[in-house]
């Protein structure tokens, strides 16, 4: 048996060689100092396996807990948000309640469709979700339109709020077995997130805002076609 580097890699990752091969490599490593050095060099090149962890943003942690509670999380306990944003949060809370009441289907695997707003499929069983999404995308459009005119603090608050509502709706779409909507919302959320991390009033922020507005409009157009197709 030739013991090359690939064999040594498989030996390092236990249970990937047969028992016989494993024993043979172990014996060879005991007897052959040159092979041992090769093995040690190989292993030392690999990153240490440890329980790596990263800091979980508070908003994400709250959202994770909310997934279990079936609740909607306010941005922070003490932060007072602009009136328009608070109204939006109220609408989202009401919308989530509607979803909670109407959609209690088990989650299933998603498909591999491309996450583009125009490709979202409308199904009759998703009518409550469609209403909720319409509220969400309308609210998003209003917020995005206002962003440039408002102070930075308002922008940050509004974007965070939009992001939280979007996350709640991703979970709702997954629960509702609506993978297309989940993907559209996820892609939408990624861009909202990027908007939140871009310097306000920068060219990037402006382009992202335009893109988000475009996507919100596409979704609203698509969602508005539902009644004629399904009711």
């Amino acid at each position, binding site marked *: 048996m030739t013991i090359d580097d690939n064999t040594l890699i498989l030996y390092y*990752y236990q249970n990937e060689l047969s028992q016989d091969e494993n024993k043979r490599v172990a014996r060879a490593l005991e007897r052959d100092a040159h092979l041992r050095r090769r093995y040690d060099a190989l292993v030392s090149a690999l*990153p240490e*396996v440890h329980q790596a962890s990263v800091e979980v943003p508070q908003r994400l942690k*709250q959202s994770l*807990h909310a*997934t*279990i509670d079936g609740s909607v999380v306010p941005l922070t306990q003490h932060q007072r948000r602009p009136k328009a944003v608070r109204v939006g949060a109220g609408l989202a809370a009401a919308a*989530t309640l509607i979803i909670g009441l109407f959609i209690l289907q088990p989650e299933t695997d998603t*498909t591999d469709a491309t996450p583009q707003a125009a490709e979202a499929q409308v199904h009759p069983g998703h009518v409550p979700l469609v209403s909720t999404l319409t509220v969400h995308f309308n609210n998003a459009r209003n917020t995005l339109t206002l962003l440039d005119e408002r102070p930075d603090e308002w922008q940050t608050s509004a974007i965070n709020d939009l992001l939280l509502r979007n996350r709640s709706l991703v979970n709702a779409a997954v629960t509702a077995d609506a993978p297309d909507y989940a993907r559209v919302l996820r892609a939408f959320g990624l861009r909202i997130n*990027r908007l939140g991390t871009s310097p306000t009033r920068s060219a990037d922020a402006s382009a992202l805002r335009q893109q988000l507005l475009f996507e919100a409009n596409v979704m609203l157009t698509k969602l508005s076609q539902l009644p004629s197709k399904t009711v």
Partner: protein
Amino acid sequence: MHLRVMDSPSHNHSHPTADADAFHVAIEARSPQWLAACQRITRSASLAEDALQDGLAQAWAKREQFGAHASLATWIHRIVVNAALQLMRSRRRYVWDESGLELQDPEPQPDVQTESDHFVSQLTTLLSRLTQVEHTAFVLRHFEQWRLKEIAAAMDTNEGRVKQALFRAVRKLRASEKTIRNMA
């Protein structure tokens, strides 16, 4: 503080409060590890957050399938990792040529590239030099300690191809050995 908008499943008699409590405890204790695993797989901070949210929602939805043979946190970890893989698959399929070698990766998606600039660890930056297939195979075998055949199933391919991807990944990492040592 959560704003309740509907009855919590923890108040439902068919799901004892302990279930929800156990999930809350697991979130507090292990969400940093879950998020780290998702970041390693997706190579994107925001995709990792989405994967974690999806994974946790899936775990909660099928909590009755949880058996006592593993810890709840470990069980959720596995589901979260699968959610991250699922998310990556939905963005781009793994591409192999007829000989079983991975085709060259196209340029990274813009959001991945942007976010990798802010990425949390040097290790992740180093791993980002691997192609998508090498990266997935290596992360799942090395960090998540999945068997090669499990990885092959997750990547819709055979064990031989995963092995080759793993070997290539290790070779690339060896070439960057000095960098890794400096990180230790």
